């Protein structure tokens, strides 16, 4: 097909990189923001600006909060279409769960409910979820959106397209193409090591863009490869649903056998029974961890078949000081409180898997590494963005029809400055909309989407300037808008909450202080970049005028 391996790889790198690159920038950018998703949540939800909490008492807080959980209305409505007859008013609870990390002031609680009478799936179930204040059990308003953990983070891995897991598949394919782009990029570059140290500032624009593309691509190559690969591994069960389809029978048999061996009942007995003290079980688990010289807090609590004779409680140690999310599970009989089973040391394969996934999701405590993740992700954005710019520059003189070229540039503007604009716009909307606005979260999402759409319209409109070989003015105009909105967000946070930088730095309350500082840096950098680009566009347009005039004169003659 191609004349050489290098030619084939160059074709793959260029075209798949271009088509999927737009998506990859979005995935990388929101992945970078997700590294600080909890901190962004604190900024957007002033009522949650307090110190991280440990899992609260079961008898005083959790039991009541769990029992008030209800199934997700959308999932419930969908489940009604799958069953024969009517669903009972109170669905049987399969489990209650709570998960927290060293960065969470609020607590995420969730439940799974059995769906009876589904002829196709005897184990059909739906979910319920709420966020509570662990100090008093108060449920946080569902109208309030955790923009960091419930909007930016899912955007990173699912694009919020949940129909048939479509978003997961699109992101998964983009991640695979990222792996392909990295492999093909390595093959097409003869002097990989040299690229690490090559940035020729004095060369022409196209050369500098390519140097920067190569430099960022090579410098962060292991980081990008690792994150694309481990991101795929996290959702492998969705991409390759072997155990739910072709191998459902052996997978189910194994799960039953494993439950029996561990003494953890797979199914409820259907006989109501009182629950022993879960607080004592958590205390006992902590005592066992301390005896193993691994004292720690509870990170994950599961109450299986609550209120049933077969109930059992699983307590997992928080992974604050380990790479894996949680670990050292200890399981108790829910009815008697007796210790049933202690998770053994991982096998090599399970340990490797936990390590890779834990390193991707980073729930452990390591702030310098957390910042490195952000920079690594942003370097990925720079690498892809410079790829777009190089594509446009290289073909500027070659393409007869400029529409394709203009589209590439307009999409690049939309993807880069447009995405940033939408991100700061949702923050501004969050601070402008009153806290008691009905459906506040939905309004914020609407502002985000609308801003992004407007930035695309603006980018296409302004891309007409490319005909004159100039840079599209959309780049600097949107950069000015980002600068203004990012600064507004900081000021609005001050006005609406009183938490200006002097307060948050003096306390110190880092989640808000650092996010305000980041917004100010974004504002300043955007302003500097906008001014430089503006100057460049002006020079290019002025430079182009005599040429155009000459052409007009020739055509008139």
């Amino acid at each position, binding site marked *: *097909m*191609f*004349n050489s*391996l290098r*030619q*084939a*790889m160059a*074709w*793959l790198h260029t075209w798949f990189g271009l088509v999927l690159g737009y998506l990859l920038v979005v995935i990388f950018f929101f992945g970078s923001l997700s590294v600080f998703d909890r901190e962004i949540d604190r900024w957007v939800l002033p009522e949650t600006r307090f110190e991280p909490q440990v899992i609260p008492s079961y008898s005083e807080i959790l039991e009541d909060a769990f029992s008030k959980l209800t199934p997700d209305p959308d999932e419930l409505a969908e489940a009604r279409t799958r069953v024969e007859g009517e669903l009972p008013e109170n669905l049987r609870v399969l489990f209650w769960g709570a998960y927290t990390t060293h960065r969470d002031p609020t607590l995420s609680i969730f439940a799974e409910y059995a769906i009876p009478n589904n002829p196709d799936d005897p184990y059909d179930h739906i979910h319920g979820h709420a966020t509570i204040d662990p100090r008093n059990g108060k449920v946080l308003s569902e109208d309030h959106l955790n923009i960091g953990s419930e909007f930016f983070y899912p955007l990173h891995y699912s694009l919020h397209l949940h129909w048939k897991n479509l978003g997961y598949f699109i992101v998964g*394919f983009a991640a*695979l193409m990222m*792996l*392909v782009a990295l*492999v*093909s990029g390595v093959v097409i570059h003869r002097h990989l090591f040299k690229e690490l140290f090559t940035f020729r500032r004095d060369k022409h624009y196209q050369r500098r863009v390519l140097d920067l593309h190569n430099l960022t691509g090579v410098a962060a190559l292991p980081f990008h490869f690792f994150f694309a*690969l481990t991101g*795929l*591994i996290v959702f*492998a*069960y969705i*991409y*390759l649903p*072997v*155990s739910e389809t*072709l*191998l459902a*029978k*052996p*997978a189910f048999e*194994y*799960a039953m056998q*494993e439950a029996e061996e561990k003494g953890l009942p797979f199914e409820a007995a259907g006989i109501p029974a009182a629950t022993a003290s879960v607080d004592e079980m958590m205390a006992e688990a902590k005592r066992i961890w301390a005896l193993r010289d691994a004292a720690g807090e509870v990170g994950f609590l599961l109450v299986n078949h609550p209120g049933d004779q077969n109930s059992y409680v699983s307590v997992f140690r928080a992974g604050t000081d380990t790479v894996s999310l949680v670990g050292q599970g200890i399981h108790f009989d829910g009815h008697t409180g007796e210790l049933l089973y202690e998770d053994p040391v991982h*096998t090599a*394969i*399970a340990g*490797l*898997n936990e390590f*890779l996934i834990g390193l991707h999701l980073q729930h452990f405590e390591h702030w310098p590494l957390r910042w490195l993740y952000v920079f690594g992700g942003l370097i990925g954005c720079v690498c892809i963005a410079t790829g777009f710019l190089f594509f446009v520059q290289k073909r500027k003189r070659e393409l007869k029809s400029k529409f394709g070229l203009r589209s590439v540039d307009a999409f690049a503007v939309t993807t880069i400055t447009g995405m940033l604009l939408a991100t700061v716009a949702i923050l501004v909307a969050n601070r402008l909309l009153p806290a008691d606005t009905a459906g506040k979260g939905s309004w914020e999402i609407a502002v985000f989407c609308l801003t992004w759409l407007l930035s695309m319209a603006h980018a296409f409109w302004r891309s007409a300037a490319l005909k004159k070989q100039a840079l599209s003015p959309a780049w600097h105009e949107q950069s000015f808008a980002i600068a203004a909105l990012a600064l507004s967000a900081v000021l609005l946070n001050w006005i609406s909450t009183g938490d200006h930088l002097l307060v948050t730095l003096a306390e110190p309350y880092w989640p808000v202080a650092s996010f305000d500082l980041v917004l100010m840096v974004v504002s300043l950098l955007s302003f500097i970049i906008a001014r430089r680009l503006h100057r460049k566009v002006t020079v290019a347009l002025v430079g182009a005028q005599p040429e155009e005039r000459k052409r007009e004169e020739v055509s008139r003659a």
Partner: protein
Amino acid sequence: MASSKELSVLHLLSRISAGIAGAYCFVFGVTTLGITLGLGLGMSYTDAQTLMYLLAFLIYTTAFCWAFIHRSLLTIWLFLIGGGGVMTALGWWLGNHA
């Protein structure tokens, strides 16, 4: 040998389809068969599945690139779809009947 400029659209689409769908079919087969072989070797189901998930995307990347490198389109399709289909069927049979 044809240069990339002389490629027919159909040929290119066939390569892209083989790269995307063919490689997926192949990896699905490798995963299904790999899990059942792992079970046969005495691994737990969880370990066998995890091992295949750890390898699957490296195999996909390799298969995808190979679909653009190998000269014969017929071989690519036969190997990826045919091989994937056979491995899937064999894995299913071994997992459910053996």
